[in-house]
């Protein structure tokens, strides 16, 4: 077992040099080619001055460059910072600034975004992936430079399991993203568990649905690499068109699928599944949101040979519990999040962080080898989230406070019972309502703002917001939304922004979210 993520590629290339490591849009990359290109990028980055632990951001859409970029950064000794390409430039700049990233790996189609980043006075000194005339005075190297340096030998770089492997980002309540730091060891602990739990093998073909900056992608790429399997990178076009996606899953003979329930619901409703031959599929993993019973039952009926696994976790701990649905096609209600993974300990605690007596509801604490090493550059947040308390053996250990409330069922399975804060999920993405409220407040004529999540009936939520504005400013729902599109990712945009005279308040002065929900009838109800 390698101690660093990028070494997974060497093992896979040794076992299956000519087998496909990744496929995207009909093109593919073999394990030996991936190893050579990884070495090329790593050599280039080292030549550009990247040293152990230096943050290197990767801003790429869905393409075969993604695995090369990931492993190349790691093999150079860098700490990988994958960026959500759907983020507005302002948000990308915040992430680059907060991580202190000094190098950026991108692709020619993103020269406008990179140009915008240059205006943001960041510390980026070199960009890989643009043509030299693409970005003004910046030091740039094109992808062809990577191919020129491709070789069988990686640069000689000292990296061990406790080095940072990647820093992932999610929504933060202050508007600043939460930066989640994992080591090679914590990433590999997840990889080992996943390969074992799902029996991943060399002939598996894993579909990659999620953005590269999510922990879903760590399964799609690194667990696949450990098994020397193939990752089929799905293009956004396929993911937005369920009938095309279903054809692709059939044509690519996908064997393992891991996504948010929304993607599966779309496939079910618009994918024409009854006419597709999905006999290659053996595992469907889903996480991130509630899967509506009625849809899950239908999916189980349509795919009788497939095993379904409800996995639970967060970017901070990756997967920490899982529940495999019974083969009978039954769907327990509510669907449990299951039992702790073999590498995790789960503890249900009260507000004093003391264990809750049998069957009570409390906050879930997680300890184990997949837990992050901390939030990057945020000691205060680390003190809140990573707490020391005695473990079962009596020794003090570090636990991650998930912020999720859970209950232990009679059979030992855990079930999700809501959030302890205002974090919500929109199509699997974590969204802090405070971030949306802050983004609205940043718009000049907005005096007050409030946001809330409303279930959409398909297991996800939509966000609605209300604002109190300067009446002289002449703002509309549409003008506010268009301003927000510059600062928030698409999934975090409210579907409704009501302009109200005042926000409803509880007697203690807090925003009364229930009363607010009643004031915002939703997009479909507007004339």
């Amino acid at each position, binding site marked *: 077992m390698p101690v660093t993520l990028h070494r997974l590629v060497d093992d896979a290339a040794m076992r299956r040099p000519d087998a496909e490591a990744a496929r995207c849009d009909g093109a593919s990359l073999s394990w030996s080619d991936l190893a050579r290109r990884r070495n090329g990028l790593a050599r280039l980055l080292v030549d550009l001055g990247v040293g152990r632990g230096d943050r290197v951001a990767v801003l790429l*859409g*869905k393409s075969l460059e993604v695995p090369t970029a990931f492993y190349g950064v790691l093999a150079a000794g860098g700490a990988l910072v994958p960026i959500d*390409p*759907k983020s507005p430039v302002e948000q990308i700049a915040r992430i680059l600034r907060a991580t202190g990233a000094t190098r950026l790996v991108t692709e020619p189609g993103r020269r406008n975004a990179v140009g915008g980043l240059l205006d943001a006075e960041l510390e980026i000194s070199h960009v890989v992936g643009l043509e030299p005339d693409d970005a003004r005075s910046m030091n740039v190297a094109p992808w062809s430079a990577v191919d020129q340096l491709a070789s069988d030998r990686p640069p000689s770089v000292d990296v061990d399991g406790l080095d940072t492997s990647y820093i992932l980002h999610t929504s933060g309540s202050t508007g600043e993203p939460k930066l989640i730091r994992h080591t090679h060891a914590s990433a590999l602990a997840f990889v080992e568990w996943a390969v074992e739990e799902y029996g991943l093998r060399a002939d598996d073909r894993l579909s990659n649905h999620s953005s590269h900056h999510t922990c879903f992608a760590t399964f799609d790429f690194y667990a696949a690499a450990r098994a020397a399997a193939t990752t089929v990178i799905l*293009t*956004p*076009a*396929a*993911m*937005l*068109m*369920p*009938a*095309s996606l279903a054809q692709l899953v059939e044509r690519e003979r996908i064997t393992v699928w891991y996504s948010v329930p*929304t993607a599966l619901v*779309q496939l079910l*409703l*618009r*994918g*024409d599944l009854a006419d597709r031959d999905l006999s290659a599929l053996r595992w469907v993993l889903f996480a991130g949101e509630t899967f509506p019973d009625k849809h899950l039952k239908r999916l189980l009926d349509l795919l009788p040979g497939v095993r379904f696994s409800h996995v639970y976790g967060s970017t901070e701990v990756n997967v920490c519990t899982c529940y495999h649905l019974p083969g009978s096609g039954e769907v327990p209600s509510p669907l449990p999040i299951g039992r702790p993974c073999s590498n995790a300990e789960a503890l249900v605690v009260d507000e004093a962080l003391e264990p809750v007596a049998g069957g009570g509801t409390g906050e879930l604490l997680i300890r184990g080898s997949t837990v992050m090493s901390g939030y990057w550059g945020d000691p205060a947040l680390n003190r809140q989230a990573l707490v020391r308390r005695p473990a079962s053996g009596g020794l003090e250990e570090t636990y991650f406070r998930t912020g999720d409330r859970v209950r232990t069922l009679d059979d030992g399975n855990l079930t999700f019972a809501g959030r302890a804060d205002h974090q919500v999920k929109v*199509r699997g993405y974590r969204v802090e309502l405070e971030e949306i409220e802050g983004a609205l407040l940043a718009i000049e004529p907005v005096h007050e703002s409030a946001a809330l999540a409303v279930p959409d009936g398909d297991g996800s939520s*939509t966000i609605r917001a209300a604002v109190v504005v300067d009446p002289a400013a002449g703002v509309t729902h*549409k*003008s506010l939304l*268009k*301003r927000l*599109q*510059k600062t928030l990712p*698409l*999934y975090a945009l409210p*579907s409704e922004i009501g302009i109200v005279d005042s926000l409803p308040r509880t007697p203690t002065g807090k925003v009364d979210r229930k009363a607010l929900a009643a004031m915002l009838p939703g997009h479909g109800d507007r004339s």
Partner: protein
Amino acid sequence: MSTTNPASPETIRRRILAFISDELVAEDVEIGPEDDLLSGELLDSVAVLRLATFVDETFAIGMKPTDFLVENFQNVRVLTRYVVRATEGRSPAG
């Protein structure tokens, strides 16, 4: 469902473009008939669904689940072609 005379391709194209730029994208984003609507960075799944609903209702297509194909939605040009095909030869009674 009642239908009027089928709209001309030019009218269909203009109305779809206007809907996207008025309802779905940021203020400073210009959309042309060849621009990729499915890059994942312009429209998300909700916006795509709103676009499909708009097209379905405006041109009375009776869209089927199997019509949610890349080749029908990739850009405004092919979407227009899809609408034209779907409404072709329709009798005035709809």
